């Protein structure tokens, strides 16, 4: 070993950024860039070229970014449940809704009707205008929403977590629907109005926090519907907090227990990991983030509307986690940003670009036809040569693209969903571990070609000489060696042994 130490390694370019710091730094840089752009764009318009203003506010409107941040919060919460603990939850939007309505109840004039009036460092506006109801400041509401959701997570989890995989997914799906229906029809629960029903609760109070006055100087103020930039800063802070907590928890005792349960429940419980408690804590901690997202969303849209808590949001959240890379917070963050952006900005812009003029519509139609034909052809080729299940999915996405073309020709904007669906299908075909997968998951999903036995065989071959030496040593030492090898199950070794036994 000493000899090796003397040899100097070839001069390498020094890596300045640790690999683990790359994503946080990239995301932080993006956040700072967005902040600076919109700060200049709002208060010092003269410094921003008109073309740039046009482009950025068209393709990256700040409202859409803020909404995406709320999705990131919820997706990170879901990642704890799905990615870390491996429990599929198809009703996660329930926590979002509960968090949202918590904000709606204690941060608006909602309870004015019942003569309830209470104020705790709430918005200045409601104080000056003496609006009734409960007005608690945003940060307290955030904590309250998180805690209420944690409790809700435990209440829901206790009976449902005894179920496994598919059954659990179905029950959570049902639960998500129940919560939605309760709020949707909540204007008359035995004569009590708890949610204003379809109208929702509006307006929700403004956040009292640091904002900018007309000159762009910092000042304390109520952040109304037009103070999008300060809210962006708040959301970035919340996301950073949840990211930090997620990573830390994963590295600790609880994170290991979650992983173990994801891998093998039975073995984990036999090693002293309490299954119910550990699963419940995943639910509760995931719900905390989901609740925070709910409160943040209520502030983002200055209201709570039951329409925003529908089943498709749950599915979108699961898609964000899976597409980004289950279990990897950076993947989930990027996945959520991309999907939320695609949903809110990307597809509508693409649509208007396509339907904007006759010529662009014609060009797009041709392009989509070619793409659809290529997918179908590729799928057919795969069916004929490889005989796997994937080609079927390729077929389906090809067909859906053709339908999309038909819809475009007939001026029907629902083609968006078809493109969205096709992209997801292709993603699962060619990169099912997600955009930025967890190292562990990549390991499994990328070695499909090899069976377990094959990989085992390969490994054994690599260590065979070592084990040979160990076993020999053991025998010479009369069977009482310090590092007693318990089993060198190497096929070559076995043959060798037989030979020796016979001799």
């Amino acid at each position: 070993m000493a000899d090796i130490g003397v040899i100097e390694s070839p001069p390498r370019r020094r890596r300045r950024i640790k690999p683990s710091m790359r994503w946080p730094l990239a995301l932080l840089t993006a956040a700072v860039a967005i902040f600076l752009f919109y700060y200049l764009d709002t208060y010092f318009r003269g410094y921003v070229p008109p073309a740039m203003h046009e482009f950025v506010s068209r393709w990256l409107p700040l409202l859409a970014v803020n909404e995406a941040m709320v999705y990131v919060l919820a997706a990170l919460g879901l990642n704890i449940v799905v990615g870390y603990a491996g429990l599929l939850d198809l009703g996660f939007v329930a926590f979002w809704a509960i968090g949202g309505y918590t904000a709606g109840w204690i941060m608006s004039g909602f309870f004015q009707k019942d003569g309830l009036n209470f104020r705790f460092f709430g918005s200045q506006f409601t104080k000056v205008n003496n609006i009734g109801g409960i007005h608690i400041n945003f940060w307290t509401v955030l904590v309250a929403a998180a805690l209420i959701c944690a409790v809700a997570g435990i209440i829901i989890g206790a009976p449902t977590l005894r179920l496994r995989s598919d059954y659990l997914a179905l029950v959570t799906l049902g639960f998500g629907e129940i919560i939605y229906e309760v709020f949707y029809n909540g204007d008359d629960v035995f004569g009590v109005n708890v949610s204003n029903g379809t109208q929702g609760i509006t307006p929700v109070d403004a956040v009292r926090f640091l904002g900018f006055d007309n000159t762009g100087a910092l000042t304390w103020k109520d952040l109304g519907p037009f103070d999008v930039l300060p809210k962006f800063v708040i959301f970035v802070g919340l996301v950073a907090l949840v990211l930090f907590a997620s990573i830390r928890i994963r590295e600790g005792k609880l994170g290991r227990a979650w992983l173990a349960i994801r891998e093998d429940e039975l073995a984990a419980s036999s090693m002293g990991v309490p299954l119910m408690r550990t699963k419940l804590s995943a639910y509760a901690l995931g719900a905390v983030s989901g609740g925070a997202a709910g409160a943040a969303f209520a502030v983002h849209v200055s209201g709570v509307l039951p329409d925003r808590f529908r089943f498709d949001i749950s599915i979108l959240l699961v898609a964000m986690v899976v597409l980004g890379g289950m279990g990897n917070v950076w993947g989930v963050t990027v996945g959520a940003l991309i999907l939320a952006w695609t949903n809110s900005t990307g597809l509508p812009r693409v649509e208007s670009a396509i339907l904007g003029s006759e010529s662009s519509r014609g060009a797009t139609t041709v392009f989509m036809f070619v793409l659809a034909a290529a997918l179908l052809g590729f799928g057919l080729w795969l069916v004929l040569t490889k005989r796997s299940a994937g080609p079927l999915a390729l077929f389906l996405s090809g067909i859906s693209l053709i339908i999309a073309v038909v819809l475009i020709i007939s001026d029907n904007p629902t083609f968006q969903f078809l493109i969205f669906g096709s992209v997801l299908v292709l993603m699962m075909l060619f990169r099912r571990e997600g955009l930025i997968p967890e190292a562990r998951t990549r390991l499994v999903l990328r070695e499909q070609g090899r069976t377990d036995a094959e990989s085992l065989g390969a490994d054994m071959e690599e260590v065979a000489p070592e084990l040979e030496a160990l076993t020999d040593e053991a025998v010479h030492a009369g069977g009482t060696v310090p590092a007693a090898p318990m089993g060198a199950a190497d096929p070559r070794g076995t043959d060798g042994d037989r030979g020796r036994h016979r001799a």
Partner: protein
Amino acid sequence: MTATMTQSALTARGITVRFGGLVAVNGVDFDIPLGGIVSLIGPNGAGKTTFFNALTGLYRLAEGDVLLHDRDITGLAPHKIARLGMARTFQNIRLFGLMTAEENVKVAMHSHLRSGVASTILRMPWQRKEERLAHEGALDLLDFVGIGAVANEYARNLSYGDQRRLEVARALAVRPTVLLLDEPTAGMNPRESAIFTDFVRRVRDEKKVSVLLIEHDMSVVMRASERITVLDRGEKIAEGTPEEIRSNERVIEAYLGKSGTEG
């Protein structure tokens, strides 16, 4: 405790396990003497693993009691039984494949770690100290079973032999007083099995555990165990020292069939 305290690490009385109408284990009495190595043998389908799973809380007992150091553990959840000092390995290796060897061992320390969520997020000094001790403890255990060099490898990438060793290291991390090994020499050749037998002795002596071994391989059983219990079709048919078992007619019959019927 009084002087009447038994010398048993584990006592099982009248263990019966039923699956619907099928009686898999029927009224088996069994005990592991303190610091002893005992074996449970029997032909395929005799109910050995079922008996094992019943002891460790994975199966519900139809009848019977299990005492661990005079403490009744009948019907407790598996993780509680583990916490009280009973750890096991699995016949078909059940490691956490996508966790490293070290992480596998640390999972088994779960019930000994005290830090909560808040102190983990804030990385409080006591949490850091606890994690450091867990890290060192895990490496010690991996060294003890002889696979310290692969501490950072994913369990699924380890060789078969190393996986078997890791199972033992993981079970030891529970800090058991009773260690249950389910066919640990499956897939080993005679020499490896012999080495393993000595390893079990070493575990017993150094880690101060009482060992229950399920085995198929008679040479391992005869060499390793101080006492042997034989199961056949869910019932205990014999119990005694290796010499007694070797010459027991019912055992020979169970393994080889009645003379005459075999032709």
